[in-house]
């Protein structure tokens, strides 16, 4: 086959596929953003007009703000715990060799491939049974725990990549210079792992912020943004929901760009 033609065909195929995939990914996102500007009450086309009034509505809607608050609270808490626990596990997974390491890796890695809904259900059962015995209800705390279980393995994977490129001899050198264990962590280990930890933390935040399945099962009657939106999905809803969606998108895109900048900086080291 003519090489020139072949190469040209391949290029068209590849670029076309990538472009197609990207367009595919952004169809619903742009649809939502577009609909948030709908003037009228209904989510149908053509629009009655363009306006920002539903954004205003959003800030006056108590349940929406409540859901926003819950999402933020749970996300911050889950990020904190998942990042700390997951980062430590990453150091263990990459650096150390010990008895039962295979089981350890399986244990911390399985939640990654476990369908979220089922994870949520399994945890729901567990917490409900425990709740009966110990007298507590599902709510924000159980949602946080559920998020951490699901998110910590992601953190571990991301930080592990950073740990792998970190030469432990640097820690030896620091000790030789006179550093105590804490000083080694403070001046060497954490600064060098920080890009990985930071991007993992951002990733964790976004995973928690956008999580539906686990929150749905575990938050009890508390609502976060995703579950709140779920309750409002139907054509009969108002453009309030697309407005919420757009608001949710914004921190997402900012954080993703931030995480990427850190990842690039980490690679340069």
């Amino acid at each position, binding site marked *: 086959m003519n090489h020139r033609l072949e190469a040209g065909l391949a290029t068209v195929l590849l670029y076309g596929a990538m472009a197609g995939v990207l367009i595919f990914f952004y169809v619903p996102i742009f649809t939502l953003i577009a609909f948030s500007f709908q003037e009228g009450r209904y989510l149908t086309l053509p629009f009655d007009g363009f306006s920002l009034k539903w954004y205003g509505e959003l800030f006056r809607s108590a349940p929406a703000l409540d859901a926003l608050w819950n999402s933020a609270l749970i996300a911050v808490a889950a990020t904190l715990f998942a990042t700390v626990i997951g980062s430590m596990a990453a150091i263990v997974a990459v650096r150390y060799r010990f008895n039962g390491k295979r089981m350890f890796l399986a244990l911390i890695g399985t939640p990654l491939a476990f369908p979220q809904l089922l994870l949520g259900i399994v945890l729901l059962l567990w917490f409900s049974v425990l709740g009966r015995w110990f007298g507590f209800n599902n709510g924000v705390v159980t949602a946080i725990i559920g998020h951490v279980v699901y998110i910590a393995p992601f953190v571990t994977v991301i930080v592990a990549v950073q740990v792998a490129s970190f030469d432990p001899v640097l820690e*030896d050198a*620091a000790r*030789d210079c006179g550093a105590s264990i804490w000083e080694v962590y403070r001046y060497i280990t954490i600064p060098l792992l920080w890009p990985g930890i930071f991007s993992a933390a951002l990733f964790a935040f976004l995973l928690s912020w956008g999580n539906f399945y686990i929150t749905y099962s575990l938050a009890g009657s508390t609502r976060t943004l995703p579950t709140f939106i779920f309750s409002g999905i139907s054509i009969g809803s108002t453009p309030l929901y697309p407005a919420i969606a757009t608001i949710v998108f914004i921190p997402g895109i900012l954080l993703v760009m931030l995480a990427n900048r850190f990842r690039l900086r980490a690679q340069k080291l």
Partner: protein
Amino acid sequence: MPEASILDIADVHKAYGGFAALKGVSLAVNRGEFIALVGPSGCGKTTLLKQIAGFEDVTSGAIHIEGLDMAGVPAALRPTSMVFQKLALFPHMTVAQNISFPLKLRKVAPADIAARVHEMIRLMDLKPEYLTRFPKALSGGEQQRVALARSMISAPKLLLLDEPLSALDVKLKKVLQAELKRLHRSVGVTFVHVTHDLEEAMMLADRICVMRAGRILQLGEPADIYYRPADPFIAGFIGDTNLFPITVTFRDASGISWQSPHFTAIDTHLPHAMVAADVSPGPALMMVRPELIRRYNEDESADFALSAVITEVFTKGGTVQYRARSTQGFDLAIELQGTSALPMRLDEPVRLGWQKKDIWVLRQEAV
């Protein structure tokens, strides 16, 4: 009497599970000397160095620095500084921050730190503008100097070097070897240098400690190691050497009597000083270094002589190396300076000889 030995290693063993890395090593290092630990990989030299530094513990035995027992003392608290094989410069800190790190940990005042850092870069011949750069931006040789500066800034009692020059190319290596020697002379700190390159050790060290399979084979000055090795392994560790099989027929306090079919000799008695202490009647080896053999004319008198044919000629710039096969079937190595001696040619039959003062008799078996 003031304690001259700054480092005392007493019967140190190190075992990893079933594997014995060090099998009873004892060594006393003098204050201010430059001592090299040399040996092939796996001989335990790096393990010993790490034990001195405090990164490995001692399975049995003791290490004393300036008379103080180092058992249980972690690396951070020992008066030692190490230069790592991979340099281990902190990539996220500038050169200045790297060098000043030990002082910063000791909470020295910033003004004093700055003064010391400048002192160090002058000592190491580094340009001041490098201070704000990151290690990545410096060349291999410059990074070495930064690593040395960082190790020296805390005025350690012992400087431990873990094969720091092994990854460098030949030219740079020679430059830095000279630097190290100069540094040692000007600073006066005790250096313990680990290397697998005996030539490097001979160039740098006051004393050399040859190790193999977890034991010390020989400890002595470079000339001792080179001209009077304790066993054939050490003899062969540095380039070529000639080890003629001989039979020792008699040994007493004055020396030995020997015989060998490989060459003719004026007399077959050797004084005590030319024989290793552990040689006893029986098979042994007589060593002559290649540069001490030359061609003798038929009418010249040589203490030892044999006939051979030149089998190979290698020219190496200012020296020429020859291989010759003797009439007894022994392969010799000869090294001559440029054009001073009579040149020899390939396939030429020659009479080779050497003098009595240049030989050494050692035992036949290596450890």
